[in-house]
């Protein structure tokens, strides 16, 4: 029997075939779980993040919001990566509250109720930085654009990037290095400053 592609399985799942989801999970569970585990080094937590990742995937697919711009596994890893960042953010916030509540006399209620998100000005600056960065990325050769996106947007390791792009780790490292050098040159030429 011919093996179905991820895209075919996704389409079948969106058309109501639940078995396709099972095939998709079985195909990628090892890769995705290891990606999560080696960022957390905690098996129980990795299971939680794995579960939350697939819940997000299911909701996105069922609502018809999935846009196939990249490989399914890269999209899944990006979701997992964002969930891991959320976990660490929440963890650091909890530690801060407990320290100030019980041990520090300089406890301030504003530590707890302080808006965790950026304010509007910060958000506008973030948008501006992202727009500038994307404009600069387009100026890079395709292979350098790809490694920068995989490394810094999707959070993949150099080994994972090498696997996905069918190249050696040294080639990947070289591409990232040249991409960063080129980005610096573009910033200097266009007098772009990417800081808050």
């Amino acid at each position, binding site marked *: 029997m011919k093996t179905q592609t991820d895209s075919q399985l996704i389409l079948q799942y969106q058309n109501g075939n639940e078995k396709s989801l099972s095939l998709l999970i079985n195909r990628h569970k090892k890769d995705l779980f290891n990606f999560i585990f080696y960022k957390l080094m905690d098996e129980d937590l990795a299971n939680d993040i*794995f579960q939350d990742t697939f819940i997000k995937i299911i909701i996105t697919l069922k609502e018809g919001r999935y846009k196939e711009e990249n490989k399914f596994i890269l999209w899944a890893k990006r979701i997992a990566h964002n969930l891991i960042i959320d976990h660490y953010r929440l963890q650091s916030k909890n530690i801060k509250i407990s320290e100030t509540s019980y041990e520090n006399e300089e406890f301030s209620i504003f530590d707890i109720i302080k808006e965790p998100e950026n304010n509007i000005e910060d958000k506008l600056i973030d948008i501006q930085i992202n727009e500038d960065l994307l404009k600069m990325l387009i100026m890079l050769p395709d292979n350098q654009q790809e490694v920068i996106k995989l490394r810094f947007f999707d959070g993949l390791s150099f080994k994972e990037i090498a696997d996905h792009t069918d190249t050696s780790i040294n080639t990947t490292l070289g591409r990232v290095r040249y991409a960063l050098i080129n980005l610096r040159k573009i910033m200097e030429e266009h007098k772009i400053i990417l800081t808050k």
Partner: protein
Amino acid sequence: MKKNDTLTKKALMPKKEIIDFILNYSKNLQTIKTKSRKTILVSKN
């Protein structure tokens, strides 16, 4: 004595219960199309 190879990555798998939970979660979700063509997800239970 067997040496521990700390440099080799251990291949891990998610728990079976987690996979079962995900598949059941998916089966219990039903999509409903509204008049305004918006897709809403509701639980079958």
